[in-house]
């Protein structure tokens, strides 16, 4: 499995997952993927909404998971397009 550049946003409430993701995605090369791991369920709709505000990135995937502490996670994969 490819190891993506990852933002650990676990335990963070909005707006921090998106503030952090924005900072990172602007720093990675075009074409690469950024993985954001969040625990805030509100991040699912918020990432969808955020991605629509920009033509520079796209949302590749969103899925639920669980971290090693048993917390429910929401994993967002973003690709920088431009």
């Amino acid at each position, binding site marked *: 499995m490819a190891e993506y550049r990852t933002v650990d946003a676990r335990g963070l*409430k*909005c*707006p*921090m997952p*998106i*503030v952090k993701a*924005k900072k990172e995605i602007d720093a990675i090369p075009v074409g690469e993927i950024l993985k954001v791991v969040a625990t805030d*369920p*509100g991040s699912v*709709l*918020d990432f*969808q*909404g*955020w991605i629509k*505000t*920009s033509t520079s990135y796209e949302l590749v995937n969103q899925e639920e998971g669980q971290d090693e502490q048993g917390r429910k996670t929401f994993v967002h994969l973003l690709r920088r397009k431009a």
Partner: protein
Amino acid sequence: MTELAAPDLYQRLAAETPPRILDVRNAEEFARWRVEGPRPVDVLNVPYFEFVEREEASVRKVTDWLGGRAGDLVVVCAEGGSSVYVAELLLARGLAAANLTGGMVAWGLGTTVRPVSASGPARLWQVLRFGRGCLSYVVARGQDAVVVDPHRGTDVYRGLLDRESLRLRGVFDTHLHADHVSGGPALAREGGVAYHASQRDFEGASVPVEDLPDGQPIRIGKLDVLPIVSLSTPGHTPGSTSLLVGDGFLLTGDTLFVDDVGRPDLGGQAAAWARDLHRTLHERLRSLRDAVVVLPAHASTVALAGPLGVVAGTLGDLRQRNQAMRLDLDAFVREAEHAAGSAPAEYARIRAINLGRETPAETELTELELGKNQCALSRR
């Protein structure tokens, strides 16, 4: 930055020049549920992530909307974090804005307390949970008091009892609630008093329930400490019970609202329960005078609150103006059948919680109760 608690914001929305609201949640959450006040609220939705992505254009959206008009601005989000972020951005650009502390989660739990009756056979207060349109009551005579239809934020009742030096003698639920988690069992347990509700709704419950028999004066132990008579008023649920206080106030639960009636379709037997409810409204309540004041458990909109902030109506007015109450039996049953199937998915889980069968964590309770109640027949 100015922090504004939910009850203070609600208070200010009743003022002559209410503050404007900038709601920074995503469009879906905004469409589902938003801040409402006794007067129309001027509100703009610009999600916080638009400020993250293009700060300048987003701030301009806000200043264009304000158009130099006077008045305060309050920023609102889901839990009170993103709204601080946006309010700080605005402040850095010279635009002062207050933050709704705790966001919509706090808004959904916020309450106001209004006296309904200060004298007569009983004193009565109405507690309005304004974000969800839920109403509950404290009824007192002398130093004895009971609480009716409390929601899970039980501090407001304990605070009122303390302030008025009242002794809690019992807790009542007019029916098994499906739209919100009851505070009744917890309040009764903590106060060492009985929790009263109809056995017909609470059969198989894991919480101890004292039955509410039809047509009986309420007794606490051997005392009839309060002038309250229970009236079986089935239809919204089979065990729905109204409480007649003195002969002047009728606490109707979800049987009868000021501008609507409770939904009889939530139990999967829309036609049968609708017939029960129609009989309740037109036969059971027939002997009650027009002057009796109806105090319901829900308001479809807080705009129904009168000048004193109380949601109430006389039976006479309701008999004239409440459209659902004026439907004949056939039309009433058709309306209920039409409503059937549109109940929110979380209602089954909320019922299980209110029966004491499940005890979820606080975060899930918040999630289950997001949005306004959908208990009224024609406004679902």
